[in-house]
């Protein structure tokens, strides 16, 4: 392996090159734009696979061989600094895969294709930036930039109430990141404004313990208050109850591909923020608040599940199921044990694949039915007997549903089992409540399936056609992923083990 690899630079900027080239293609060449985007995302995905093949799973922490560090703003010691470790690699792979598949699912977009695909590739660039950045300032820039393409993607190509959803999404996330910004500046001064004051790795390790901070005339412990700032910033993204109210709107209004990206990748940015920034920098405060995080996590699990059960809109149902499943990730994070943390990272990956499947399938169905009602507002059935009409579709749906439910043999099971193993050591009663959440999860998914796929075929459904070749093409990789990683999760677990172990041992010293 060469000493200085530019692979991370290529992964980060490849989508940006794609976006710029897309802008240069004349807007009449719709086919050209689509194929170019597909080739571009495929290249990016192959680059992430190359990264995976070169990745050394035995090294904990950042892999020196891939690090990129260029001074950016010398006055504040801000660097353009990228790196990769076992926690970010699964997210990189997931991002590469999902964006590639989403381009295929976006084939049916007809409105302003050029703008759509260039914004979409721009979004991919900013998501990679968040997962690769090792400089807090750079991380923040990418974290915020991501809002701009998302705002337009939801707002232009979304459903009937798209503007409200787009604005709500933007404002909520911006609110959280302002607190993060202030925390970031405060950290800069607390760490002595030295050469590495924005360097996430140098900040990590539990400095800043005996500092105080005055806010509204009251003294607070520096690390606890700043942890809360960062927590709110990340929790809005996850979304943790009570900051979740933007999510159902954004999901329901967003076009299919954007819902997939939102649930599959963007929500993980929140939990990734905990793993990369909040936990390593403030291990003591994280430990101090771990019970509160667990409580919020369990509220997410149960409340999200009950909300999902009450929905008549199947997309909203899946959106709330995301809230519930991200609650499991929060539980794993709160456990701070090896199994719990591994489970959390694995759940981030697995939820990314299974929920992406669900949203893609709903998108496929929507293209046929043009509505998503399980029960229409006037009380009649929206779907019925789909199983006899769309057999292939129904089988893929079953796989997605069971993976999301956590049925043994499919991917969701392993990660949830690890999370429960991890958290049992610390919060037994919460584990018991979490199992109830699992049960409710099974209930709403099965009930939805029963109402939509079984029973009498309603007239409307008789005209629907089964999945076509293109749709099968982008569902297959995900089907393989949920089945293979359900039986044999070691590739991902090996990837993250060393890095997660390092983080857990850091937390264990406090």
């Amino acid at each position, binding site marked *: 392996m060469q000493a200085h690899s530019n692979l991370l630079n290529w992964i980060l900027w490849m989508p940006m090159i794609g976006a710029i080239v897309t802008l240069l293609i004349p807007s009449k060449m719709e086919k050209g734009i689509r194929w170019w985007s597909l080739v571009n995302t495929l290249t990016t995905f192959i680059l992430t696979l190359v990264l995976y093949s070169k990745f050394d799973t035995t090294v904990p922490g950042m892999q020196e061989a891939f690090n990129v560090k260029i001074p950016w703003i*010398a006055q504040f010691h801000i660097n353009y600094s990228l790196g990769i470790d076992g926690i970010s690699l699964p997210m990189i792979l997931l991002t590469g895969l999902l964006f590639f598949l989403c381009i295929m699912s976006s084939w049916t977009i007809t409105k302003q294709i050029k703008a759509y695909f260039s914004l979409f590739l721009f979004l991919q660039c900013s998501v990679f930036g968040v997962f690769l950045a090792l400089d807090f300032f750079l991380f923040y820039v990418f974290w915020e930039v991501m809002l701009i393409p998302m705002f337009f993607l939801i707002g232009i190509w979304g459903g009937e109430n798209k503007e409200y959803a787009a604005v709500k999404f933007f404002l909520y996330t911006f609110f959280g990141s302002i*607190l993060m910004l202030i925390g970031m500046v405060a950290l800069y001064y607390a760490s002595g404004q030295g050469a590495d004051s924005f360097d996430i790795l140098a900040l990590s390790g539990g400095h800043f313990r005996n500092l105080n901070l*005055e806010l509204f005339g009251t003294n607070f412990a520096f690390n606890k208050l700043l942890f809360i700032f960062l927590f709110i910033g990340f929790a809005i993204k996850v979304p943790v109850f009570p900051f979740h109210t933007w999510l159902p709107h954004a999901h329901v209004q967003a076009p299919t591909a954007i819902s997939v990206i939102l649930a599959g990748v963007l929500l993980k940015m929140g939990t990734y923020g905990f793993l990369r920034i909040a936990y390593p920098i403030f291990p003591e405060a994280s430990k101090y608040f771990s019970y509160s995080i667990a409580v919020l996590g369990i509220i997410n699990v149960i409340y999200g599940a009950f909300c999902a059960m009450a929905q008549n809109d199947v997309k909203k149902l899946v959106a709330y199921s995301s809230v519930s499943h991200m609650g499991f990730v929060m539980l794993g994070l709160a456990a701070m044990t090896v199994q719990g943390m591994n489970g959390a990272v694995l759940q981030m990956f697995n939820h990314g694949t299974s929920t992406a499947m669900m949203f893609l399938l709903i998108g496929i169905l929507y293209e046929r039915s043009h509505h998503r009602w399980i029960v229409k507002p006037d009380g009649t059935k929206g779907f019925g007997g789909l199983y006899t009409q769309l057999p292939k579709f129904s089988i893929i749906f079953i796989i997605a549903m069971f993976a999301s439910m956590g049925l043994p043999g499919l991917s969701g099971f392993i990660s949830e089992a690890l999370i429960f193993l991890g958290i049992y050591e610390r919060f037994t009663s919460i584990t018991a409540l979490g199992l109830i959440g699992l049960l409710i999860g099974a209930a709403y998914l099965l009930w939805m399936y029963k109402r939509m796929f079984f029973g009498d075929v309603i007239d409307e459904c008789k005209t629907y056609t089964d999945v076509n070749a293109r749709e099968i093409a982008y569902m297959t990789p995900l089907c393989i992923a949920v089945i293979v990683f359900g039986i044999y999760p070691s590739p991902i677990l090996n990837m993250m083990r060393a890095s997660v172990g390092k983080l857990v041992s850091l937390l264990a010293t406090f």
Partner: protein
Amino acid sequence: MPFNYLENLTHYIPELIICFTMIACILFESAYEKNDSDRGILYLIAILGLGSAGVFAYQKIFAENTFILGSALAIDSFSSTAKVLMIIGTIGALYLSKISKDIYQDLKGEFVIMSTGVLVGGCLLASANNMLILYIGIETLSILSYVMASFKKTDDRSSEAGLKYVLYGGVSAAVMLFGMSHIYGVLGTINFQEMATALSGIAQSYPNNQLTILIPSFILFIAGIGYKISSVPFHMWTPDVYEGSPMPVTTFFSIVPKIAGITILLRVSSLFFSESNLLSVSWFGIISSMSILTITVGNIAAIGQRSVKRMLAYSSISHAGMMMLGIVVLNTVGMRSILFYAVTYIFMTLVAFYILSIVNDEYDNDHFERFSGLIYKKPLMAILMAVTMFSLAGIPPLSGFVAKFHILNAVVKEGYYTLAILAGLNSVISLYYYLKIVRLMVFKPYEGSENLVGFGVLNQTIVTVLFIPIVMLGIFWAGTMAKLNLANILMN
């Protein structure tokens, strides 16, 4: 030091050039027929004159700092930087006045002359080193502004704007003069350096209680300056005046008088209150609460507006508040953050007002709905406007964010977390109304058949050129900041 008039003048070249430009403009203006539509030469003279003044002022940033004319003026790198910024703002407003239909043809000449005159006042204010020059500067700045506000003779709202401006301006100037005379009564001098020495002398020989008498005087004093930078609670005139004035005048008002006011407030604060005593603590309290109030009131009032111009007026109030926040910390970090904020603010304001002005000319009003579907008609302009709005709200990696980052950085460095959080959360509020315009431009369908003739190739190019710094300063701001880091206030 012997009083060498000619040698002093060499330090005063930018202002002299501006004055002569104004005189030349007056002479040429009288040569035009009343209805002669093209006043090209006039604009050429003005822009060339201001441009060369800008070059000289820019050179002064790197020259030695000195007091001239018997310590009446301080020519230091800080005031020179401020002058360069004001000149850039004026040139921007000048070109806008040429293309705008909001200024009547026969009044274009007057706009050039008067804006140059206001600029002289602004430069005077930026360099003022005693109370008298400060007052003269403010009055030069104001008197011509009153006329400019009522340029649109046939429009009632413009006359109303002018009258309101005069009334508010007169009262606040009187209040300020009263405060200044009181301060003079206590300290016995009008020179800033001597005043600062006298203040610290009083603070040392009579700890605390003697200083209390000066607090109300300084509050009266700040009323005058607060009025110029339209900070709450002296902001009531701003929306009406901004709305009533023609578009180029509004653009001009939201740049030059604001920067001039901020610079003098900064100079006074850092000269008088850098020592810690009862007076500086009260000053800190006053400025910090004023700035937070300014930001918040400006933002909240902007939400409900129907006219884009009025919305921008309120948003400019809140930006002035952000700049004032940099004064609170009373150190050079804050000062340089303010200068950077001013740089970015000028370009953002110019781009926003250029686009607004051209849209306004087409429809003859500036309601939000006029922006509906702009992206389908003029995609480039709509994108530039959208990015400018994001920059105003402070989204990275745009210059507006970097400016906010610098201000927050200065505030957090001194440990004023409360101020930082209140100011930061305000940008969330501001994002809401900035998004409103983006939403209309991009999400709404395009109605009507107007083809927006104002967006010709030339104007689009100029807007794009003005827009480049908004993005570039957001990513590569190190070079600009290095220049601004040279800025210093000459203390004694």
